[in-house]
């Protein structure tokens, strides 16, 4: 019994069926609690006023935008090495979710930036990197859509994901070289003594947990759909042959 057995499509369908509603439920609870706590029960920041509260959407979505790509990279690697179909489908399922997260981070950032920096958009390294990440997501999804044979599509997108990751990191540092930053440093980092005041920190944690769970739930659901589509195609082929 190894963990890879859970990648068997039948087993995957089996264990995700009971897990999925719980993940959705927990994600909903976390988001509702975190957002209400954050929006209504935390004080305004002394400099930023109430605009600080967009952090509860901006930081988690930005976090997930990057993590979704990393998850796609890991899933692509698993597909290339071990040829588990579910893993390729999971990478495919994660891409649109990551795309939406990237858009959310960009939009909430713009809404916050307008009163704070006086502009919706600036060619700041972080903002630009996110825009580039958005383009990478677009290309990845477009390649999936363009190829008919599922195995070829999985292989090619996996290669694109790996090469793209290298270039995404390169772009990140190239962009740093190219322009001075307007964006503040990382709001959260593991090695900092205290990141932000506890008052904001706990609801933010709850929101991040909510976004992670939401991402997991959406990816599981979309992967299930992809597996069902695969099965339907197989049935169709079999029916045509008979």
């Amino acid at each position, binding site marked *: 019994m190894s963990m890879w057995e859970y990648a068997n499509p039948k087993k995957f369908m089996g264990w995700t069926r009971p897990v999925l509603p719980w993940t959705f439920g927990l994600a909903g609870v976390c988001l509702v609690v975190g957002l209400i706590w954050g929006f209504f029960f935390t004080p305004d920041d002394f400099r930023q006023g109430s605009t600080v509260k967009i952090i509860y959407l901006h930081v988690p979505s930005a976090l997930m935008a990057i993590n979704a790509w990393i998850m796609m990279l890991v899933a692509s690697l698993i597909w290339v090495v071990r040829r588990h179909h579910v893993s390729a489908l999971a990478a495919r399922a994660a891409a649109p979710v990551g795309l939406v997260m990237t858009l959310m981070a960009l939009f909430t950032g713009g809404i916050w930036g307008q009163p704070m920096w006086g502009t919706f958009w600036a060619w700041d390294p972080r903002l630009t990197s996110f825009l580039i990440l958005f383009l990478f997501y677009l*290309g990845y999804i*477009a390649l999936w859509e363009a*190829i008919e044979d599922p195995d070829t599509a999985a292989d090619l997108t996996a290669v694109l994901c790996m090469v793209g990751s290298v*270039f995404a990191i390169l*772009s990140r540092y190239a962009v740093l070289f190219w322009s001075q930053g307007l964006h503040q440093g990382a709001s959260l980092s593991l090695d900092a003594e205290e990141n932000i005041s506890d008052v904001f920190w706990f609801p933010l944690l709850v929101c991040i947990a909510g976004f992670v769970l939401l991402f997991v739930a959406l990816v599981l659901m979309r992967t299930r759909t992809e597996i069902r589509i695969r099965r339907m195609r197989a049935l169709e082929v079999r029916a045509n042959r008979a």
Partner: protein
Amino acid sequence: MIALLMRDLRLAFRAGGGFGLGLAFFLIVVVLVPFGVGPETELLSRIAPGILWVASLLAALLSLDRIFALDYEDGSLSLLATSPLPLEGVALMKALAHWLTTGLPLTLAAPLMGFLLSLAPEAYVYLFVSLLIGTPALSMIGTFGAALTVGIRRGGLLLSLLVLPLYVPTLIFGAETVRRGAEGLDPTGAGILMAGITAGCFAFLPFATAATLRINLR
């Protein structure tokens, strides 16, 4: 390998279109920019490095889908794959042929175009050198993109969507080299980083390209 390179070069020269078209496109983009932003010399000379780099990038993009598509259609790509020459070598030669037919002419023509955009006099050398070092990376990345989309009918648009984000680092460092040169700053840092990207592309992307071709020929 040399034979393959010569064959590709001959095809590019004789089949018409591909060779001169990139250069003509480059010229047209450069001519269109002043119509768009106005003829003030100071403005043009300020944006010239970026325009020249973006224009050469687009011109290189134009002929990418020819790299593998014709060989794929008439079956010679399958022959190349079964030949004793490793597919990695094929990828490398294809990129080199693409560079010799687009990147190199663009590099040679760029100083003339810089004249049209009233580029700062001290930047010409940097423009030439940065294009000379940078355009091979554009060809190599483009070859990889062409290999990804070779099996797709009408993959041209998809090809540009896939390849353009990959061009970002090269473009940034390339244009930055020229800009710093034009402003009298030290451009070697940006230039060396761009050379590093080119070297890295040639070290790794032939393998990725060959892997992609094998998947597509399966």
